[in-house]
């Protein structure tokens, strides 16, 4: 195997620029004659805009323009869109309220975009924004998911009575009804999946530029999918046709989903660049990020699991209300539906499932995909239910899972998906071994002897990654196909540029993708460069989310490499005067079988370009191939995470003592990078479970958790070191066998933590985030385990 090929712990190529301060993020880019945009944001959760007086601001020093929704309308710039159509149970389409990039009649959440001030300096823009006088008629607001449809709630969009976006369902209600009727036991839980703010450490930023000579626009932006941004800005919002709009997403400092979407700010910057005739730059500060980045999660769920007398699952019934915020963000509608309810079967052979999801508007920031998107919410429901059922029936939590695991593949779940490969018992067994489950009772006794409470929690999760067959997602309402593109350009001197429609924001694609090329062509990764993030270089792509870069993006590269190899064989056959059938390609060299004739890959590349030794009427000169790859199925990473915690009842402080994760990601390209992805995912899941929660004031709709002073991000001391291992069942649906690893930790962790905390406390449920105060209150009210026993 090549030392830089598949399966090797290759150090990252991209690191050198990041560790020396040479990364190029959007805010690091400055264009000549650049101006600065500052957004005036709504101070009200809900208000009618009676009038905007911008005269004083326009006259302020350094100001080039003060633009409002009326100016957008004048230029016929369309509103932001939601790209996934969901229909209600009654067949009616979802109620998508208008979403102008700058408000046109009403503001619907604190932070909503009212106007933009463009000035020579940022400080001038900020100062002028103070002078814009907006006459608001404040309206009552509703921010709570569970109260969005109450009789007293104000109407947020005219198109959506009762603030209902859709009432959707999936599964067989009747079969579930019948199973519940014959159940031996039903475990019921009311669960809240807390609202989160994604918080990549690089905030969003955009620079719009307009070239009047060619009548074309360039947008530099912090995006996980620049091509889709161009498509939406062009085809729906109407900035410019695609061939006159270039979107560049340079180094992106984390995204976690929040940078997939098309937002007001980049739309306004690129549009306003033509209005003011100069580049317009906007960089979000952290407070703006809290206000206006798409948030994640925010479900309220009632869930019931029916079991027989042997602890076998008979049916699952779930009723969820999902808060989508004040407007439908780019992919928001698919998150609580097809990315959520289709995963409710978990790793279990569940004969019947029925899920109802009501999506609601509230006067809060839009909610969209955040790391895992729907799968963490589904895993939380099923894994909390399973653990609670085990406690209800006094069955060991590992045993109840073992009894109900899917054991043969392919497996058709009652909620659309067909799991193609997996071995859930293997990962559970390995995790039990690594955490020394057998000796947990002794460890618990030891903690109790010190007045502490120890608990252990399981999460055997599954996710659907590698989004996904275009026909499948199209039939479910997606507005786009979800294939990926690749172009492999071999230069005459034998080095290789790979253009991919995928995009990286920390996942190390420049290394893993190069490892694939290294493996296939037998060259070093130093001879490979990966090009992404520029719509003028890469023709089209679908970007990075849902762990699709490995399964779909790399498969496209593999397909293009197949074509490269096929053409190089033809060239090699001519040059070495042999029949193509006699050409072998191994370890980076073409040989003629049974002879000592041999050409290195680079020599064949050169021969392809000099084109002296083959008939160019039959074989075109050059060595460049492209491919579009559409997967045949989702991939199904799965695994078992076990978390062991200790609680100090006097303070409510929860310490994670041990964390074991045994994941099945199929074929692993770079174990080092995969481990890093799992670590980061767990940290975000632990954040959700123990510290992070986005809060709005119920009366005023003001964001209470608006900075790092109030929103508790996990820090180094909040986390343990993790123990990781893998089982491997290669994915059958792509040529590489890869499944994806980016979301696993964030999906598995919340249930594992809360299962451990409730185990330690001996309580049935505890809300997330289980902060010290929440845990302390639960510890005070619980019956002390030692006394009870």
């Amino acid at each position, binding site marked *: 195997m090549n030392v830089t090929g598949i399966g090797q712990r290759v150090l990252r190529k991209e690191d050198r620029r990041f560790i020396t301060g040479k990364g190029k993020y959007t805010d690091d880019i400055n264009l000549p004659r650049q101006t600065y945009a500052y957004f005036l944001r709504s101070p009200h959760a809900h208000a009618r805009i009676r009038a905007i007086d911008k005269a004083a601001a326009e006259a302020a020093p350094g100001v080039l323009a003060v633009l409002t929704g009326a100016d957008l309308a004048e230029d016929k710039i369309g509103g932001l869109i939601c790209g996934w159509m969901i229909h209600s149970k009654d067949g009616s389409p979802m109620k998508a309220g208008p979403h102008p990039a700058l408000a046109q009649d009403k503001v619907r959440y604190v932070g909503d975009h009212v106007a933009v001030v463009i000035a020579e300096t940022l400080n001038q823009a900020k100062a002028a924004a103070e002078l814009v006088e907006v006459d608001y008629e404040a309206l009552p607001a509703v921010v709570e998911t569970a109260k969005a449809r109450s009789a007293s709630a104000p109407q947020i969009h005219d198109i959506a009575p009762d603030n209902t976006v859709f009432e959707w369902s999936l599964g067989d209600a009747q079969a579930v009804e019948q199973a519940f009727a014959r159940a031996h036991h039903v475990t019921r839980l009311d669960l809240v999946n807390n609202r989160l703010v994604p918080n990549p450490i690089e905030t969003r930023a955009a620079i719009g530029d307009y070239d009047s000579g060619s009548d074309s626009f360039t947008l530099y932006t912090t995006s996980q999918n620049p091509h889709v941004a161009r498509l939406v800005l062009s085809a729906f919002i109407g900035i410019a046709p695609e061939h006159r709009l270039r979107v560049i997403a340079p180094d992106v*400092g*984390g995204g*976690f989903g929040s940078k997939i979407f098309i937002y007001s700010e980049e739309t306004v910057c690129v549009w306003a660049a033509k209005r003011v005739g100069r580049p317009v730059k906007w960089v979000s500060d952290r407070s703006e990020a809290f206000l206006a980045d798409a948030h994640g999660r925010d479900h309220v769920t009632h869930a019931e699991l029916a079991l027989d007398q042997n602890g076998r699952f008979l049916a699952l019934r779930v009723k969820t209300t999902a808060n989508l915020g004040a407007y439908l963000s780019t992919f928001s509608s698919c998150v609580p539906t097809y990315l959520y309810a289709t995963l409710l079967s978990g790793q279990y052979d569940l004969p019947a499932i029925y899920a109802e999801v009501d999506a609601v508007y509230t006067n809060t920031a839009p909610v969209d995909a955040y790391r895992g998107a729907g799968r963490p919410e589904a895993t939380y429901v099923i894994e909390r239910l399973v653990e609670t059922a085990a406690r209800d029936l006094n069955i060991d939590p590992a045993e109840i899972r073992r009894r109900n695991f899917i054991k043969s593949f392919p497996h058709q779940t009652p909620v659309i998906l067909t799991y193609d490969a997996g071995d859930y018992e293997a990962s559970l067994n390995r995790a039990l071994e690594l955490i020394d489950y057998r000796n947990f009772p002794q460890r618990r006794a030891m903690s109790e002897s010190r007045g502490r409470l120890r608990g252990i929690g399981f999460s055997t999760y599954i996710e659907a990654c590698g989004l996904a067959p275009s026909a499948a997602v199209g039939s479910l309402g997606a507005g786009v196909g979800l294939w990926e593109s690749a172009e492999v350009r071999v230069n005459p001197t034998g080095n290789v540029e790979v253009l991919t429609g995928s995009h990286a924001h920390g*996942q190390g694609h420049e290394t893993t993708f190069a490892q694939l090329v290294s493996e296939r062509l037998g060259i070093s990764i130093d001879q490979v460069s990966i090009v992404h993030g520029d719509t003028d270089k890469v023709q089209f792509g679908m970007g990075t989310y849902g762990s699709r870069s490995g399964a779909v993006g790399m498969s496209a590269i593999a397909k293009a490499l197949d074509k490269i190899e096929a053409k190089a064989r033809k060239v090699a056959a001519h040059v070495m005067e042999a029949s193509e059938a006699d050409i072998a390609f191994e370890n980076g060299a073409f040989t003629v079988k049974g002879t000592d004739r041999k050409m290195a890959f680079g020599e064949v590349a050169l021969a392809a370009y000099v084109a002296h030794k083959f008939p160019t009427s039959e074989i075109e000169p050059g060595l460049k191939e492209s491919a579009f790859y559409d997967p045949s199925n989702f991939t199904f990473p799965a695994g078992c995470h076990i978390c062991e915690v200790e609680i100090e009842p006097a303070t409510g402080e929860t310490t994670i003592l041990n964390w074991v994760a045994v994941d099945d990601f199929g074929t692993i390209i770079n174990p080092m990078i995969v*481990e890093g992805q*799992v*670590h980061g995912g767990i*940290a975000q899941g632990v954040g959700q479970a123990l510290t992070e929660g986005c809060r709005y004031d119920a009366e005023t709709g003001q964001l209470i958790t608006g900075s790092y002073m109030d929103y508790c991000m996990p820090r180094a*001391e909040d986390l343990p*070191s993790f123990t990781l291992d893998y089982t491997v069942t290669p994915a059958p649906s792509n040529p590489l066998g890869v499944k994806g690893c980016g979301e696993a930790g964030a999906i598995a962790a919340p249930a594992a933590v809360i299962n451990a905390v409730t185990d330690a406390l001996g309580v049935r449920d505890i809300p997330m985030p289980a902060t010290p105060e929440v845990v302390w209150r639960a510890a005070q009210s619980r019956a002390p385990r030692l006394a009870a026993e």
Partner: protein
Amino acid sequence: MPKVSMTVNGKQVSGEVEGRTLLVDFLRVNLGLTGTHVGCDTSQCGACVVHVDGKSIKSCTMLALQCDGTEVTTIEGLAKDGVLHPMQEAFREHHGLQCGFCTPGMIMAAIDIVNRHPNGLDEATIRHELEGNICRCTGYHNIVKAISSVANKRAAQAA
């Protein structure tokens, strides 16, 4: 506007700044040293950590004028003659970064932590000392490993 002079990465620099100009803005905007990043507006995240007279500080919390006459080192000034600082090497070796955005501040903070603990560092201390720096990608696991390797290699050499 008042004038400020300082030594940045070994070079004497000066510029005119407003009284309210933060050190981080002087570095990024006036000097074009964009390796130092801004990640929050409440001095919580640590993406902007640099060294002033050898000590790590958050450059979003210091005015440029306060640094008059000081020696400032940023991430760009760590590697000498193309040779990476051991902490830069360690972050790469242990995969202590993903998106790379918090990394410059994290590395500058890490160097100061190690400098203040010449006898080596245990995991708990490293985690405690990192409380001023937020990383959203790595789960800290590999950052802790990277810092530990430098601290304990240095302590072993000193012993």
